[in-house]
C-alpha cells in the first residue's frame, strides 16, 4: 500500500544529491507541450524521455523540460536538444520509440540521430 510516508524515504535518499545537481546539467531536452504538441502525442514522448534519462543514469547530465509552441505544428511532437557549445538539434514527429533511440544514441553517446531531425525531414520532402 502506497502512502505519503514513503516520500520520507525518498527524501533521505535524494537530499544529499540535491546540492550536487544544481547547475550541473549540460544538456537540456525541451518537449513542445502546447495544444498542437499534446494533440500530436507529446505526453508519452515526454514521459519516455523522463523514464529513459533516469534508467540510463543520465539525470546528472540531462534535464528534461517542457516548452510551448515553436511554430512548426505540422512537425509535432517536436523535441529540441540544447547543449552548451553545440548547435541546437530539433527532432520532429517524435514517438516514444524514437525518444528511446535519441536517449541511447544522442544523449548517452553524443551521436545525433539524423533521420529524425527537422533538417532530414525538410530535405526528404
Amino acid at each position, binding site marked *: 500500500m502506497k502512502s505519503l510516508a514513503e516520500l520520507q524515504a*525518498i*527524501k533521505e535518499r*535524494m537530499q544529499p544529491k540535491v546540492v550536487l545537481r544544481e547547475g550541473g546539467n549540460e544538456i537540456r531536452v525541451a518537449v513542445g*507541450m502546447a495544444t*498542437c504538441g499534446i*494533440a500530436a502525442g507529446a505526453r508519452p514522448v515526454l514521459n519516455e524521455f523522463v523514464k529513459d534519462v533516469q534508467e540510463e543514469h543520465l539525470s546528472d547530465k540531462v534535464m528534461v523540460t*517542457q516548452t510551448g509552441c515553436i511554430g512548426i505544428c505540422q512537425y509535432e511532437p517536436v523535441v529540441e536538444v540544447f547543449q552548451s557549445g553545440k548547435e541546437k538539434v530539433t527532432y520532429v514527429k517524435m514517438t516514444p520509440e524514437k525518444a528511446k533511440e535519441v536517449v541511447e544514441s544522442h544523449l548517452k553517446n553524443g551521436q545525433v540521430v539524423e533521420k529524425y531531425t527537422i533538417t532530414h525531414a525538410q530535405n526528404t520532402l
Partner: protein
Amino acid sequence: MKELSLNILDIAMNSVKAGAHKISIIIDENEKTLSIIISDDGCGMTEDFLKNAVSPFATTRTTRKVGMGLPLFKLEAEMTGGSFDIKSRHVSKYPDNHGTDVKAVFDKTSVDFTPLGDIVSTIVTLIQGSPEINWIFFHSTEKGTVSLDTDDMTAELGDVPLNYPDVLEWVKEYLTECYENIGYKFDYAL
C-alpha cells in the same frame, strides 16, 4: 484530442502560463455525466479577452495568433450534449482574488463522448513540468474518490523537488494504486 485527460493537460498549461501558484483539477463522475473543473489563481483574463477566449482567434501564444485549446474543449463538451463555462477575474480588477475557472460537462452516454484516458500520466506530466506549483487533484466517482495535493507531498519531501524521478514514479504508482483500490476502470480511445 484522443482523450479528455489530454484536454485537461492542455487547459492546465494555460493556468501555468497565467502564473498560478495553485491549480486544482476536479473531476466529478457518475454513470451518466463527467464534469471537469480546472481552477487557478493565475492573473486571469480581462473581460474583453474572456469574451473571445473560446474563439480560435484569441490566444496567448506568440508564434501565431491562433489558439485552439479552449475552443476544442468547449466543442468536445457541447458535442456530447453537455455544457461549457469559463469565469475569469483579472488581476487588475481583482487584486486579491484573481484567477480562472473552466468547467466542462460531458454526457458519457453520447456517441461523441471522448474517454478520460490516462489521467495519471497527465498529473505526472503537470508535476514534472511545474513542480513549484501546488497541484490539487480530486476525482470523485460512484465507487470512491482518488485525490492528491502536492502540498502534502512537499510537507514530507522538504526541499527535494517534486520533479525528481523517484518522486514522479511515486506519484504514478500512488495514483494507479488508488484507482485500483476503488476498482475504477479506465476507458481509452480505440
